[in-house]
């Protein structure tokens, strides 16, 4: 059997996992499923594209790639700035739209997020057109890893990046005051206030983190595949499936859920064809909801 799908699965899984962490955080702390999360991924990628273009224009040329990678400092710096931008975008969305609706009715917020997602996606289409674009059009040479598996340097670097980001998130949540406060708010916002936690600030931090992680996810897709307005939206179903599979509220769960979804999708492609890929996530979702709705690491409601 060709094991190449494992590489594809881990990469897709990493992308989904990073996005799913944002979804699960938003859900556990803000208590709603944010349908606009996919757009944070897309906006993150386009922001990195635009910023790297500006940086390139400022510096004169897009800069050299680092070693065997297809990108260099230009994209790395652009990516970091884009993460801040996307975090800010998420925060702005909350300030102008979601926060006012939170007091009204929980479903209204979800509805607004669906509408916001359409508007954001269409705005990207308007600004950049629906033509796919790329950070870099050069082809990368893949290396043999043995067992019939080939990887490109980009792929290895990005898996490493995912691991780093997830570790950073885990340390944040378990070792820092902010992380503890986030866990507290996700369990009991009223008690959190009693204990002295500024819940509003934790909400803001959650949005910024979710946005930044989504941006990282988008940049990964941009480097490995392509950039187009629907890139985030097409990930939405796998994101939700991964978050629910891992257990809503659990960060390691979201990553593991993402890897499972990614591997399942990649594994199914040789069997049923690439066009059915999106259905795999849906079937996994149905399965989880039927068998164990709390997911792998979720708490009983």
């Amino acid at each position, binding site marked *: 059997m060709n094991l190449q799908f494992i590489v594809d699965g881990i990469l897709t899984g990493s992308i989904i996992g990073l996005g799913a962490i944002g979804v699960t955080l938003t859900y556990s702390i803000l208590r709603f499923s944010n349908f606009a999360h996919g757009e944070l991924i897309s906006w993150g990628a386009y922001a990195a594209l635009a910023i790297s273009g500006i940086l390139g224009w400022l510096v004169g040329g897009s800069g050299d790639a680092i070693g065997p990678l297809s990108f260099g400092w230009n994209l790395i710096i652009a990516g970091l700035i884009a993460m801040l931008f996307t975090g800010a975008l998420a925060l702005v969305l909350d300030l102008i739209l979601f926060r006012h609706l939170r007091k009204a009715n929980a479903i209204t917020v979800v509805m607004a997020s669906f509408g916001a997602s359409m508007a954001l996606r269409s705005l990207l289409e308007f600004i950049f057109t629906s033509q796919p674009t790329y950070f870099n059009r050069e082809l990368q040479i893949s290396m043999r890893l043995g067992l019939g598996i080939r990887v490109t340097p980009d792929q290895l670097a990005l898996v490493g990046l995912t691991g780093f980001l997830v570790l950073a998130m885990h340390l944040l949540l378990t070792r820092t005051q902010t992380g503890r*406060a986030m866990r*507290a708010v996700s*369990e009991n916002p009223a008690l*959190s*206030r*009693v204990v*002295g*936690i500024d819940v509003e600030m934790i909400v803001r931090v959650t949005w910024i983190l979710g946005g930044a992680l989504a941006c990282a996810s988008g940049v990964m897709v941009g480097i490995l595949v392509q950039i187009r307005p629907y890139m985030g939206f097409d990930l939405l179903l796998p994101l939700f499936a991964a978050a629910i599979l891992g257990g809503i509220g659990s960060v390691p769960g979201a990553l593991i859920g993402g890897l499972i979804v990614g591997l399942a999708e990649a594994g199914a492609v040789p069997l049923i064809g690439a066009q059915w890929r999106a259905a795999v996530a849906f079937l996994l979702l149905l399965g989880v909801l039927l068998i164990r709705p709390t997911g792998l690491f979720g708490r009983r409601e």
Partner: protein
Amino acid sequence: MIPLLAQDKASIAGPEPLLRVSDLRAGYEPGIPIVNGATITVAPSEIVVVLGPNGAGKSTLIKAIAGLVPIHSGSVHLDGEDITHLPAHLMVRRGLAFVPQTENVFTLMSVEDNLLVAGGILPAATKSARIEEVYGFFPDLARQRRLLAGRLSGGQRQMLAAARALMVSPKVLMLDEPSAGLSPKLVELVFSRLADIRREGVTIVLVEQNARAALAIADRAYVLVEGRNRYEGIARDLWDDPVVAELYLGGAHRGRPTADAP
């Protein structure tokens, strides 16, 4: 026993009570006050208990002081400062700590994390010193510091909730029915702990259904009926007053309360 950090008693000299609640009206709905004109004063290092029948508004009163229930009119002053409309999460900074009746610990976090998150407003060095002090006061918790709070027994949870509140070295510690759901032996333990805490200089305000246990350690007591003050006085006098006892304190008791009440 390692003493808790000393309270800054110098600021509390003179006749101004540490906590002063004046003619408070409060309730969840704007037009419907559950607390309907309550006035309470608490002097430093006192234990004051608020009693009353079910639905009298005792719980709502204490939650309103803590900033969890909207205050319609009246005022709350802590150490001379007006905290009437202060947001709930700023109360601990001013020295007012609250232990709710239920859901008063984070069950999904460890004992240690529960204490650490409550100590968030303290600088790092103070926080680690403080947590050791608190563990000193509650050795059972120290032994279980890695355990998830959800795994603790009912009595231990109450201890953790109190320990958590003490992390910020509060001037005033407020508790909502700390005896609720506990066996008589545990109630005795909890109340003797509260007496110990008071001996360290912390002022305590309790809302209680279990009048006997509360009056045993309290200095003064208020009785709240239908949202406003009905009786107040020295704990002992209230205990002795047959009318009050019959109507509001369950009646079935005899004799004076002692520090180690049965």
